[in-house]
């Protein structure tokens, strides 16, 4: 316990006026905990970590941690992160985004960051809803789910973030839920260690905006549903096709190596300057 408290004191900003803005039972705090643990485990210094966040409940978590933190505009966290990483490739740049943030308003930037293979860990906190603005549907709200802007059930098909990232060329694509904390810690640590664009999607419950509208009586019901529904990809094969269709696979989907954009830039610079150190 003492160890945990020490971690909290080391990484959280004591002078930020707590309590934080997240609702009781929100999954976002679990992701923040995982992030702090992974950074700690990797022995990264707080000075070399830059946490870039978009706008939404997920975007607010940047203010609480004692890294270099940049709370940007809605949907554009990856564009800021691109500038930061290209300007100083030594920094460990993490972009924290909501699903609406990263894939609705920021969808185009997401595809291009993956395509470019810019050295950023993209952490998407997917609660299938717009939390901060009061529960409107996002591009990951599943068909027929209810939201404040889909009172008759969502009419549009939703995005699968993992598939999008794969298609856009991200060299590392992984997904966990906030209930699978060991998996979350593992994929996030790997993502932080790797060069290039690394996507970690975290399924995180928002009972306040999503759960209540979609017949989850309590927070705990929602967590239980996540636990039941999310299935490690390795275990999927053992299920019947009908059963498989109902599950959300979690685990590592892509793990490849290709040079990051900043590495390629450095190579050109070396060529232009005859390898002389600049």
């Amino acid at each position, binding site marked *: 316990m003492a160890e945990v408290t020490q971690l909290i004191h080391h990484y959280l900003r004591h*002078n930020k006026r707590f309590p934080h803005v997240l609702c009781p039972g929100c999954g976002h705090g679990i992701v923040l905990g995982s992030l702090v643990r992974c950074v700690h485990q990797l022995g990264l210094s707080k000075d070399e970590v830059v946490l870039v966040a978009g706008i939404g409940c997920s975007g607010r978590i*940047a203010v609480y941690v004692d890294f270099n933190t940049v709370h*940007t505009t809605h949907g*554009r966290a990856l*564009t800021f*992160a*691109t*500038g930061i990483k290209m300007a100083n490739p030594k*920094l460990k740049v993490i972009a924290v985004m909501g699903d609406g943030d990263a894939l609705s308003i920021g969808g185009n930037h997401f595809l291009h960051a993956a395509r470019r293979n810019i050295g950023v860990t993209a952490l998407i906190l997917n609660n299938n809803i717009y939390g901060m603005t009061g529960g409107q549907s996002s591009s990951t709200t599943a068909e027929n789910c209810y939201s404040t802007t889909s009172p008759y059930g969502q009419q549009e098909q939703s995005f699968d973030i993992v598939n999008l990232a794969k298609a856009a060329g991200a060299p590392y694509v992984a997904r966990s839920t906030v209930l699978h904390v060991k998996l979350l810690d593992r994929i996030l640590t790997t993502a932080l260690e790797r060069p290039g664009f690394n996507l970690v999607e975290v399924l995180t419950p928002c009972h306040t905006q999503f759960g209540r509208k979609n017949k989850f009586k309590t927070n705990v019901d929602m967590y239980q549903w996540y636990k039941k529904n999310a299935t490690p990809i390795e275990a999927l094969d053992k299920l019947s096709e009908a059963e498989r269709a109902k599950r959300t696979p979690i685990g590592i989907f892509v793990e490849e190596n290709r040079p990051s954009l900043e590495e390629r830039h450095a190579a050109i*610079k070396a060529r232009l300057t005859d390898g002389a150190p600049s």
Partner: protein
Amino acid sequence: MPTKVKKNQRKEERAIFALGNEAVVEGALLAGCSFFAGYPITPSTEIAEIMAERLPGIPEGVFIQMEDEIASLGAVIGASLAGRKSMTATSGPGFSLMQEHIGYASMTETPLVIVNVMRGGPSTGMPTSPAQGDVQQARWGTHGDHPIIVLSASDVQECLDMTVRAFNLSEKYRSPVILLLDEITAHTREKIHIPDRETYEIFSRIKPTMPPEWFVPYEESMRGVPPMPALGDGYRFHVTGLTHDVNGYPTSRPDEVEKLMQRLFRKIDQFFYDIQIVEETACEDAEVAVIAYGCVARSAHLAVLQAREKGIKAGLLKLKTLFPFPRPAVDRIIRQCRTVIVPELNMGQMSREVKRVNDGHSRIRTLNRIDGQIITPAEILKLLQKA
């Protein structure tokens, strides 16, 4: 700022035949720009193209073509926060897309330069025709109250000089600076001098010197401009577009909000005379005057010389700073002259400012063209003769 080039420095000075857009790149590199992110759009495209060629060859230089203008300015802000002198270039439609991030840069006091080569509008308008239709957008395009610095240039040498100035002012005051050009100025080819870097006074943002634990990121000071560390320098702090307290954390406490907003305005007001740049031609004894900027100022210059030949006591006040509006200089001309002519390639975006400060001192005549054609010296001369 450009100081006089001494004889023995002439050797280092390069003379080139350059486009306005090319001169912008030269100015940016002289000023120490090492990061460019942009998206192609006529008539600004050459700036991106030349940057793409030049930046990778200089130490630390980074060029990146982004997916749109929103992304471009986002990347520029990120790079500036990471310590680089950064810029982007665009034209009207792209400039419109950048507005939210211009507000973000103002609020977070992030130095950067945006070149907007204006084309005919609204909408996609006339990509290859000159216009000056984005003057008020540059001032008020983003939401909320905020100060901003907007500069312009009217010939190719000035494109270089004003780009250096844009960087200097942005670094000095931690503010986005917008350089408004028009298609004529950007696409004119003229002989220019590229002085040696040493002949320019180059300003770079002031970094904190105190130990990190003493650092208060948005502290009040006499200058009103807080020192700015780069991300990764060891001064960890929070950057947000939300209204923030001196520590950078979101706040809506009226006393803290008021302090921040007042400081943002004050840091520009206080140094107004450093930011206001105007140029006068034959104004000492002028009885009628032209107030102009951009390519129109060149026509006005010739018209004023021709008017003088005809015995008309004409003068020209050329605005190089458009905002903050150079009111003292304009005031003087308005009080001195019986008539002031404001020609521009829009429906009256600058004459609106002149009229606002006029207060009945002078007769203000406007001359507006919005057909994608330039305003000729003859057109201005005709008005001077009648004035």
